[in-house]
């Protein structure tokens, strides 16, 4: 597992597959606990391992804009 979010802009490793995720259920990633509602930056591999408890912020934003559009399929 890689991509530990250090929550430190200076030391944070940024890769192409790093994305921000909303935490839907509390998770412990390499000893750091992220609570419900917080945002965590993870690499894809780590995010997959915790996928049941995460929503990509991009998808969250997309869903939010869809809400505003009021589109019903």
């Amino acid at each position: 597992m890689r991509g530990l979010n250090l929550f430190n802009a200076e030391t944070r490793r940024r890769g192409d597959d790093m994305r921000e995720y909303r935490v839907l259920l509390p998770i412990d990633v390499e000893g750091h606990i992220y609570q419900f509602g917080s945002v965590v930056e993870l690499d894809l591999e780590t995010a997959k391992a915790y996928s049941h408890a995460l929503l990509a912020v991009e998808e969250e934003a997309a869903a939010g804009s869809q809400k505003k559009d009021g589109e019903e399929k």
Partner: protein
Amino acid sequence: MAGTAKDYNVTEIVQGPGDLWAIPIASAPTDVAVRLTLASDGTPDATTHPSSVHLGAIMTAITTQVKPKITNIQTDQFEAPIDSYLAELEASIAAEMAQVESQKLQRVLGVGTYSTGTNNNPTSGTAFEQLTWGGTWTVPKICLACISPTRQNPNQYVVSVLYIGVSMSGFALALGRAKAAGYKLQMQGLSDTARTAGQQIGVLYQTLANASGGTPTAKANDPTQIFEGPVDLWLVSPAPTDATMQVTLDATTLTPSTLVHASSAHLGLTEGAVTFSVVPKIELVRADQFDGAVDAYVNSLECKIEATCLSSTMANLAQALGVGNYTLSAGAYAQCTFGGTNQPPAICIAAIGRKRTATTKAVVACLYRVNAASGVTWTAQRAKTSTFKVEFTGQSDTTRTSGRQVGIYHEMM
């Protein structure tokens, strides 16, 4: 004058299984599009409802209940109420879940912390999943949906949705040989204060056209995650630490490592299943402007490991009694004295079993700090074996990190 037609229509009788889906609130049905967008296979459309999670196999039934609490308006002049008003509306979805796996247990517990990775327990590179609890008080919210194909047409569906649900149930697992370990889920619907009155809590509907198109979301039915089989009860000493949260196991026997937990003791034979439960008491926040609750918080957390023990050794009786004082004089006697010990010792208890379909892999339920609470019985009787019940109730270990102060469920993957 023509009569009014009766409505005898057997196609209106609902019967059939369903699936449960957890959907992030951000991608839940909206105030305008109140229903789910279904893909062709009847699963939530992955584009409209990203990160939806299937909750796995269901033991028996999924029950959606919408229950109003109506108060009558009574006046002195009339013997019957003259009107009524809705005081509260409670909506819930309940089911008995089949898959005993950390992610799914976390969903019903809500306030548990999930972790996965690899470690050296019991050998290097062992993949694990774990769930810890104790010290988390924010109650996660999720949209919950039950989707069930109709009896007449499997491409059309009956669907119930709670837009904002909170888990009220926790879990209680009976880990034993006689029956697969299922656990109850109960999600309560909250009022979404941002939605239009009349549709603030949920929706129950039936589709009348075949589902088509969309992007299906994978289901997670996995029979290997159904647990059945015996577990052993262990006093683990010293307890796992805050840094090394898991019970360290011996690679061959899958029992507590004598190197790490040198003073551990096996509590012997048990009668029937060992019950392991983690049950938060969730209180609801109500506001007079809404018929449903508007938020939730954790009032308390009750964690227990319970069993009926067959091995009535003096050592076991002393452990179960808690306030007993065990003495062994090898070759002479073993004894448990009692009376005058006010402070029961805190011990660590674990139930350890093997996966049904992968017996080289262990599952461990551990409470870091417990007191024995049930006392002991010792019965001299011809007709029946003497047994005693043990009930170990988890306490918060204030020296541990929030999120893992009470206990852990971990499994080798």
